């Protein structure tokens, strides 16, 4: 028979491997669930099916599209090919302005309406979200 020490060591190694496998599984699983994908208005037009997951939409705030009342702010995000209406009732960052880049996070209602739960802050007037930059360059 194997000695007590060998058994203990074997047990220890199995324990560590199990813990490792479990934590990797956990991390990957929650990555899958909690990741937010980024899309441009054009990509949304071409979506085949709608999923109930949170996404980000980036583009420019269309000129003369912002309207506001006590409860919500409505505006249009455009990538100069397609556009999408955004309904938002939250805080807006300082640099939210017509004709400037914007990234909104939230859920799609249908191909034309987006319920935003967050508008991302930017820190600097020259800064453009990389997603927006890429979306504009594609144009």
């Amino acid at each position, binding site marked *: 028979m194997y000695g007590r020490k060998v058994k203990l060591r074997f047990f220890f190694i199995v324990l560590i491997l199990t813990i490792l496998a479990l934590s990797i599984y956990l991390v990957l699983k*929650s*990555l899958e669930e909690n990741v937010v994908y*980024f899309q441009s208005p054009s990509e949304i037009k071409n979506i085949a099916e709608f999923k109930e997951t949170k996404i980000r939409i980036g583009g420019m705030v269309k000129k003369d599209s912002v309207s506001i009342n006590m409860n919500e702010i409505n505006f249009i995000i455009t990538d100069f090919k397609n556009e999408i209406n955004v309904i938002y009732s939250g*805080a807006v960052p*300082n640099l939210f302005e017509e004709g400037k880049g914007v990234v909104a996070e939230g859920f799609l209602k249908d191909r034309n309406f987006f319920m935003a739960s967050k508008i991302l802050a930017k*820190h600097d*007037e020259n800064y453009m979200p990389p997603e927006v930059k890429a979306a504009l360059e594609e144009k």
Partner: protein
Amino acid sequence: MPSLIGFYSLALGSSLSFLIIFFSIKNFRNSKIFDSRIIFFSFLQLLLVSISFLGLIISFINSDFSNETVFNHSHTTKPLFYKISGTWGNHEGSLLLWLLVLTLFIFLFIIKSQRQPTQYRILTLLFQQVIIVGFFVFLLKSSSPFNYIFPIPQEGLGLNPILQDPALAIHPPILYLGYVGSSIIFSSALSATCLNYISKEWASHIKQWVLISWIFLTLGILLGSIWAYYELGWGGFWFWDPVENVSLMPWLALTTLVHCILALEKRSILTSWVVVLSISTFTLSMCGTFLVRSGILNSVHTFANDPERGLFILIFLFSLIFLSLFVFFFFHKENRKIDSSIFLISKETSIIINNWFMMYFLSVILIGTVYPIFLEVISSEKISVGPPFYNKLIAPFLIPFMFVMALGPKLKWIKSDIKNKIYLFIFFLISLLLSILIIKNLEINFLLNTLLVSLAFYLFFLTLRDFFVMKYKNLSQTIAHFGFSLFILSILFNNIFTTEIITNLKVGETYTSQKFNIKFENLNQKQGQNFKSIVGKFTIVNSKGKIETLEPELRIYNQPNITTSEADIRTNLLSDRFITMNTVQNKDYFNIRYQIKPFMIWIWLSILLIATGGFLSLFKKKYEN
């Protein structure tokens, strides 16, 4: 002129590195006594880099726009304080600050390590010089802060207004002291490995350096966090943003190191682990610098999107990692003579268990930060990983983590037992009951929150008891652990009991809800030194009839022309009332965000307590005797 002097002293300073390396190698081979010329040259190098840094500061104060860095980041109307802090509020200047701290720390190390073996001191200096040379090359080649522009512009481009803030003015230097402090640990661990000097003596000598960088890193992160809280206007203090994560990762590694070095000092165990941690702390600091500076992560920290700079840091980083792996695998020997057996119930076991948890937290953050970058490179799919990911993966594991943290200090080194400790059990019951009472009527996940709160209370009560029972014995540890329990408690209650209202109001309108009314009274104009501001006046009446007036501000800076919103925050011991306002496309409506954040001040105070614990530990021998 000052920037000319700055440039030449920087160039001169870099050439000194070769002298230092030359004399060090000579001394390493021949002599048993530390060559005083090396000390002299190290001091001279420190002096030259300081002069260079001072030259840059003076150029900033004088608004010398012939200097490109000054032109890009300063403006004549900027207040003096922010002219000075603008020196390190940009890529070039902040690298010069890195270099200054690098040379300062190695000089201090040489002075302070006189009781250590000569060879070890020299080798540490050599490893540190490798890093210093790397930074010199980087500064002089691709990010010189002293570039000249002609014709000389009349006016500078100004500093990003959200950086014009007292907390953020001192945030970089403090954080750098922590980051760069870890370079000493790195060099010293490598040299001790080469010389087979990883021992109790080494541990008790390097412990001070570990503590110092840990304290500064803690305070640096705290400052950044406080700034984000009141300046970014979201009312949170941690967003799990990649740039925040890259400062948290070295902190976690360093915190683990603080504990392991104790185990090494007391029992000569965990030698390889301590070396690995020392290496990873500095590597993670460098990784942070790389991710932030290369423009891969876009944020307020990204000063320049210059691929060349990113590439340089990347190559430098990989050479350092390669160097350290080489040293570790070829020179590291486990000392087999020492009794390294570990018993299940002992202080070292608890340290090791929580080490595992810390490494788990670290890998979660690492994956969450790096995964989106890799995915974009591989599949060009763009994703972001947000707070839910981290909360879900970290919060549940804080429960066993805090349990071990509460019991660990009660155990003895080598072998211990849990007899006669009924109070441990009673305290646990009390904490559990208390948290059930608090949580049961709330609409949140009962099991997770109750366990989290009760374990935090458990740690809280046990450490509180230690203040009275243990008096000065282990005071530093008690304070730090007490601070941590307070930190977790305040975060939990802050999260659970936060109220937030977001609405759009015109002047004169009132927002009404069951809990309170917010009345937008009026708007006033004010003039600052380099900005105009609009101040809104809001009267908030809560359901108990208590009236409070808050005055958030919108600042329109002249150069660069940027609007920032300044939150108005009223703080007391129980809660913060936080309000920001924002214009939307110059319409009549203002976007208002009002929050009541309970125990906000305790989050800051608890982090200060944690840092105080580290600070006291530096003087442990003095006050215990």
